[in-house]
């Protein structure tokens, strides 16, 4: 499945992601990481924190709807793999981000922006394995 190169949308979307991360730090003093948000929602000992993270999640899920409403077209989402692969990948991602302490948003966008050595190492690690994994699944296994 070939996808079109979209440098402007990707740059603009990336800038919005960055704006959200800076605003969350400016107003709430927190790293904007999807792993941290999910992890926080799975802990019920701090309800003020839980409500904040629930609001972030609801806002995020409203993103595609807002785009549909504003432009009349739903944002592109094509899944070229089986549902089984989606579930398998999700399980592996869950274990990995738990041990790695973050994902693309927390380490990749926020941690790297404060030049955290942990985040730089984490980003290099997950980029290497994701490129390697796609090489294996597409070109060695032929999926």
């Amino acid at each position: 499945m070939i996808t079109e190169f979209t440098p402007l949308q990707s740059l603009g979307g990336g800038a919005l992601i960055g704006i959200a991360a800076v605003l969350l730090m400016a107003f709430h003093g927190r790293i904007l990481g999807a792993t941290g948000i999910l992890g926080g929602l799975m802990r019920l000992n701090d309800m003020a924190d839980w409500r904040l993270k629930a609001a972030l999640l609801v806002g995020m899920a409203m993103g595609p709807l807002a785009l549909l409403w504003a432009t009349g077209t739903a944002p592109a989402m094509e899944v070229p793999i089986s549902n089984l692969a989606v579930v398998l990948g999700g399980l592996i991602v869950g274990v990995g981000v738990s041990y790695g302490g973050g994902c693309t948003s927390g380490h990749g966008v926020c941690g790297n922006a404060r030049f955290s050595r942990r985040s730089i190492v984490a980003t290099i690690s997950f980029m290497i394995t994701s490129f390697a994994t796609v090489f294996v699944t597409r070109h060695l296994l032929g999926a």
Partner: protein
Amino acid sequence: MRILSALVIGLIFGVGIAISGMMNPAKVLNFFDLAQIWDGTWDPSLAFVMGGALAVTIPGYRLVFGRPAPVLENRFQLPDTRVIDRRLVLGSGVFGIGWGIAGFCPGGALPALGTGRIEPFLFVAALIGGLLIARVVQARSLPPRPKPAT
């Protein structure tokens, strides 16, 4: 006020993810498929997402950290650990394997829930399952507490 602010920030993030292509597994997997460089179909868009985000967060954080405290809280909550260990490197490596299989990462999948499609729900459910498995394993592998002196 805190809730409204978080809702708006989440929305900005969600719109950004949706525009950028990060919630589109086909696009994510094509970015990872470097072999497509040879036949000219490689899609390097996602490098622009990370570039666009960092172009904002690097100067933005600098500005924010120049203030004594966030607007709605009394302190910044930043990770205090600085250890680079096997957990960090291997955990992140494992995350990359899952990302390469599914094409969703957590930040891409959470906004994608709003599409109402089944795949992001399957991914997030499995992701929560993975987080729970890791939590149980980590709780078991913690060193035992020292016995109280009798």
